[in-house]
């Protein structure tokens, strides 16, 4: 079955579920995706009226992690009396993971949320497609069979779907929102029970084979065009701090310039803060206006957390993440001297 037919089916089911949730007053608002006004984009949308349900779409350009709209932010999603709105949220696998992890971190209450689960088969790597098209204007992007079809004024080009999706999507094993007994109440639509998540992280082999200097050069080259607009941070469902470390100004904690050392410090410390928390949605890379792909950094962190703590974020709502727990007999190999 072609991608476009699968997407159409998913879209129909999603609209039906959303319509029912609104009709039956199980939710006050639906958060989903709408068609973008420029090719290679999509726009998040908040729907409260049933007549707007048909604005909901699903395709391989729905790159924003909608869980971002549920973390504590101002203005909050509340009714005039100040009560939390009940939210139905269109969830591909990584949105589901983000919701579960946010619940574990006690940032959201899944009782107020209905997860409209949909199976995602990958998000188009916008920057990679744009790079191939170069200085021509893309006017239309669609999926056909197993291809991404890109059209412009005088050209039409096809790209194999499997090759031109985000690197993280290529290795993704959680296509639909994970569910377990404790949160099954929240799930409508397609959610999957996940047991024994095996991952060989083979995609990292090439990077890991590099020497330290090569790795460092790679990171420097990767980040040098950063403008520090913080789109990566603002799109990240796990970046919900009231005041980010890099915004601390009484006193200033970190350099705020676009000198490479300051840029690197921001990105690497932000990555550290996402260890065992990143849900591999790739939104940070999708939104970067300069086309910086941060996926490799977060993927490497995911591997380290998996190896050391046998933990994958956002899979079950019971296990405490490694950065939230400790044991008295934890190894302390990072200590330089013992008493």
């Amino acid at each position, binding site marked *: 079955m072609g991608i476009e037919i699968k997407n159409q089916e998913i879209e129909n089911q999603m609209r039906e579920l959303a319509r029912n949730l609104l009709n039956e007053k199980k939710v006050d608002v639906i958060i989903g995706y709408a068609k973008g*006004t*420029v090719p290679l984009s999509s*726009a998040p949308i908040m729907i409260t009226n049933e007549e707007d349900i048909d604005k909901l779409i699903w395709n391989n350009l729905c790159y924003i992690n909608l869980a971002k709209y549920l973390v504590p932010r101002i203005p909050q999603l509340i009714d005039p009396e100040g009560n939390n709105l009940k939210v139905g949220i269109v969830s591909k696998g990584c949105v589901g993971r983000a919701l579960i992890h946010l619940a574990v971190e006690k940032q959201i209450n899944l009782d107020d949320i209905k997860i409209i689960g949909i199976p995602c088969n990958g998000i188009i790597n916008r920057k990679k497609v744009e790079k191939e098209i170069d*200085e021509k204007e893309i006017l239309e992007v669609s999926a056909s069979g197993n291809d991404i079809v890109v059209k412009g004024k005088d050209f039409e080009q096809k790209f194999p779907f499997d090759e031109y999706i985000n690197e993280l999507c290529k290795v993704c094993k959680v296509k639909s929102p994970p569910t377990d007994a404790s949160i099954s109440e929240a799930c409508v639509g397609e959610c999957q029970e996940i047991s024994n998540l095996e991952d060989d992280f083979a995609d990292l082999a090439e990077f890991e084979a590099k020497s330290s200097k090569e790795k460092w050069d790679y990171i420097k080259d990767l980040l040098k*065009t950063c403008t520090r*607009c913080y*789109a990566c941070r603002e799109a990240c469902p796990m970046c919900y701090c009231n005041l980010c470390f890099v915004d601390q100004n009484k006193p200033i904690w970190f350099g705020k*310039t676009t000198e490479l050392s300051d840029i690197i410090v921001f990105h690497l410390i932000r990555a550290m803060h996402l260890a065992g928390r990143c849900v591999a949605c790739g939104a940070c890379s999708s939104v970067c206006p*300069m086309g910086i792909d941060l996926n490799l950094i977060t993927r490497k962190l995911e591997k380290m957390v998996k190896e050391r703590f046998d933990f994958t974020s956002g899979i079950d709502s019971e296990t405490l993440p490694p950065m939230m727990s400790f044991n008295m007999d934890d190894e302390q190999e990072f200590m330089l001297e013992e008493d």
Partner: protein
Amino acid sequence: MDQKILMKNEIGKLYIELAEEYNFYAPVKEKGNIVFKKILNPDDIVLEYFNSKVPPKEVLFPEMEVLFEYSLDGKDVEIQDRQDLDEKNVIFGIRPCDAHGFALMATFFTAHGDCEDEIFMKKRANTILMGIGCNEPKSTCFCTSLGGHPFQKDDLDVMLTDLGEKYLVETISEKGKTFIQKLKWLADAKKKDVQQAQELSKKSEESFVTKLDLTDIDKILDPNFEHPIWKEISDICISCGTCSYLCPTCTCFDVIDETDEYNNRGRRIRIWDTCQSCLYTLHTSGHNPRNSCIERCRNRIMHKFSYYPKNYDQIGCVGCGRCVQLCPVNNDIRAILTKIKNIEKEEEISA
């Protein structure tokens, strides 16, 4: 107005002749993005492009700029001022919309009495804008809705029109005229070149897809400061700085002092800032008058489409479409402006 011809294969020659006296900036491709950079090798210059991803404002108003450096010796302080402000620059290939952006920035940077931004204005005065008209505007371009034009000449010193193998070179300002007269090897343009350029200009104007009616938009904005539409507009905004950092008219910056105590020295720098950041308006007391996306999104629109007309009698947007293309959540300014225009219509209907 002088009209000359510059062959595309003479760009290298142009560069070599100018690079001695000027810092020569032109579009190059860096990591997949078109950006304006100081050229060291003329082969790097890219001539086939829509527009740069980062506006050429970064040449005169960089993301980060050292204002001065100082060093301490006991009780003596020595301040090292900028030495590079008298250097001459050429920005080759700037688009008319971005050139208009410089005009708006200059208006802003000189509009506050004695507080003229000396650094920007000095650099601006030492810069020649050698623009190229847009034969093929993008579907997201809307300069014509703002009184601009893909071949607008007013803000340029020299205007180039891409005629295929060659450029028609027209001198616009006095500065531009003197500048071009020094390039004695440029051939004179023929009548048919000028004619071709006029046709291209017309064709380009006709090809615009986005047409917005922005008449009196400031008069609609002012009484609707508290309109519920602002919540609707800001619902999906994630408060990043993409729209303002990549805007050719945004001028906000933050000033930071960095000290190197161990070496008795320091520097004062300025970096781009954005009204979309929560920190931008945070008071020392902890109070924040623009605490949510609603106020921040509103400020962006009000500043460009109400405060600018009010203070400087012109709109503070040039219609380059960068924010349209690059907003992470596709919060399209064209759609926002259309919604605002519709407030008026709805009111008329209900009246």
